[in-house]
């Protein structure tokens, strides 16, 4: 029987995220751990390399908070809305400090985590032909197939020091279950040295064992389990709450202006002591407005084989 890995967000970030680390907060539009990102800002971590397919609002906020020196990514934007001003300013003007970037395509990033998780020296990929991306990023290499059937591209493994994922549920040992978009959380977690799982709900081990096909991350590779309901807001959790699109639209105006961005960080991150205070400030009505209708899955029978 495993011992409990349940920790507060403060302690998990303080213990497991270190200055200079490569950090991946993964989750493709779905299940983005804003709660962990805000705690990293609040603890004023520095010189991080942030990896994520879609930096999204969370990395825009973290980069505005000064935690990062480098960004590894494949699509930089506010999905369905527009741009990410804080990141763009760092890239376009170098203000207030230059931001190093290392850029791939989505499949290239997924391949990098996959190689990292599988302990491979590279991931072969049929992308990047006749694209300027390998020119911009020399870590994308053209290689000859060892079987004599032409050229292919290779991307290097990505092994984050810390991967942080948000999920619907986990048990105290860190066995984690997700439904809805799976993104590349599994690959990013297996590739990482340390893993923090943030969940809507802590469940008994029996709940996990009753539906093992839904487990994407075993507790074996998890270092901390943080219970933080609504911790993915303003992104969403399938079945629990919808994306708060009003926030994504509001951010478009905030991020265009450095002073407004810093004011937002004061109001919603630095001046709050954690996620509970954030939810209080958001208000019950706003939270209730994001609750979806119900669409339960059917029940499958795994069978009893004694």
């Amino acid at each position: 029987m495993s011992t409990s890995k349940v920790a507060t967000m403060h302690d998990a970030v303080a213990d497991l995220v270190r200055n200079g680390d490569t950090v991946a907060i993964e989750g493709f539009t779905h299940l983005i751990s804003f709660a962990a990102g805000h705690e990293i800002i609040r603890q004023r971590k520095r010189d991080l390399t942030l990896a994520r397919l879609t930096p999204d609002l969370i990395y825009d906020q973290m980069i505005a908070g000064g935690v990062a020196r480098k960004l590894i990514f494949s699509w930089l934007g506010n999905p369905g809305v527009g741009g990410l001003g804080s990141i763009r300013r760092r890239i376009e003007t170098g203000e207030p400090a230059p931001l190093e970037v290392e850029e791939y395509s989505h499949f290239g990033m997924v391949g990098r985590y996959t190689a990292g998780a599988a302990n491979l020296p590279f991931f072969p990929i049929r992308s990047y032909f006749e694209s300027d991306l390998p020119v911009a990023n020399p870590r994308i290499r053209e290689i000859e197939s060892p079987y004599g059937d032409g050229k292919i591209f290779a991307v290097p493994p990505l092994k984050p020091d810390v991967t942080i994922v948000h999920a619907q549920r986990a048990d105290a040992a860190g066995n984690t279950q997700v439904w809805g978009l799976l993104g590349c959380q599994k690959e990013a977690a297996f590739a990482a040295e340390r893993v923090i799982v943030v969940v809507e709900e802590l469940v008994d081990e029996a709940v996990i064992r009753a539906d093992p096909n839904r487990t994407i991350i075993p507790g074996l590779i998890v270092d901390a389990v943080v219970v933080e309901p609504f911790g993915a807001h303003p992104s969403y959790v399938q079945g629990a709450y919808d994306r708060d699109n009003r926030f994504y639209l509001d951010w478009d105006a905030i991020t265009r202006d450095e002073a407004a961005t810093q004011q937002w960080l004061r109001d919603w991150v630095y001046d709050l002591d954690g996620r509970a205070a954030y939810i209080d400030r958001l208000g019950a009505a706003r939270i209730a407005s994001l609750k979806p209708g119900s669409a339960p899955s059917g029940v499958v029978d795994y069978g009893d084989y004694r």
Partner: protein
Amino acid sequence: MSAGAREPGPSAASATAFSKSEMMIVAAARELAGQRVCFVGVGLPNIAVNLAQRTVAPGLELVYEAGVFGARPARLPLSIGDPTIVTGATAVVSMYELFSFYLQGGLVDVGFLGAAQIDRRGNINTTVIGPYDHPTTRLPGSGGACEIAINARQVFVIMRQSARSFVEKIDFRTSPGNLGGAEQAERIRREGGWLGRGPSVVVTDLGIWHFGDDGEMRLDWLHPGATLKDVRSTIGWEPRIAADLATTPAPTATELRLIREELDPGGVYTK
């Protein structure tokens, strides 16, 4: 009609006025008639494919890079990672499976992309305006576009036409189209083992372009209300115009109702 051009679909006259964006979305949706599997890009493709699924292509299998095959969105997805693409879908898979087995494995008939810049041969830039190291405008980047351009059997593009977007020379080639011309593109695609044949149509707010035998786009359809003067003033090269240029049939009342009442009541894509 020029070789290779398809009928853009319903021709029933509209009783209502419509915007340029509505015409563009309707024309793009109609291009999907007869297609089976469509990989949905960010932005305008999202509304065009959702309209197609409700009109000319009810059996269209929508593939979203977030990891969904066979999406049946009940509302217009706010982004390509919206929860509505999951509920009721045929399959939800990891991004690894989506890109490896569905796209690179050759199951996608049409990759539907948007673009910031395009050249006459359908090469696409979504990365930077200006030099890469010191861009004047940092754009989103590839996302899945550079692999869609290579692995989808054909590529459709939807984008508004302007002198800044239809350019003689793109600032960065994110996703390859017909490269320097059809002959070169065919050789490179064959020798490289690409499954994709490259771009076949570009739908804009002014008309519909198809690609000729030499790999250059040619205006086959001009949208109602648009003029050749509009076309020439929003393009960075001397455009090729079909000898039998036709007028795109206006949006039908049904198409407009679906866009306005069901898909985009807030006018996000159509204003």
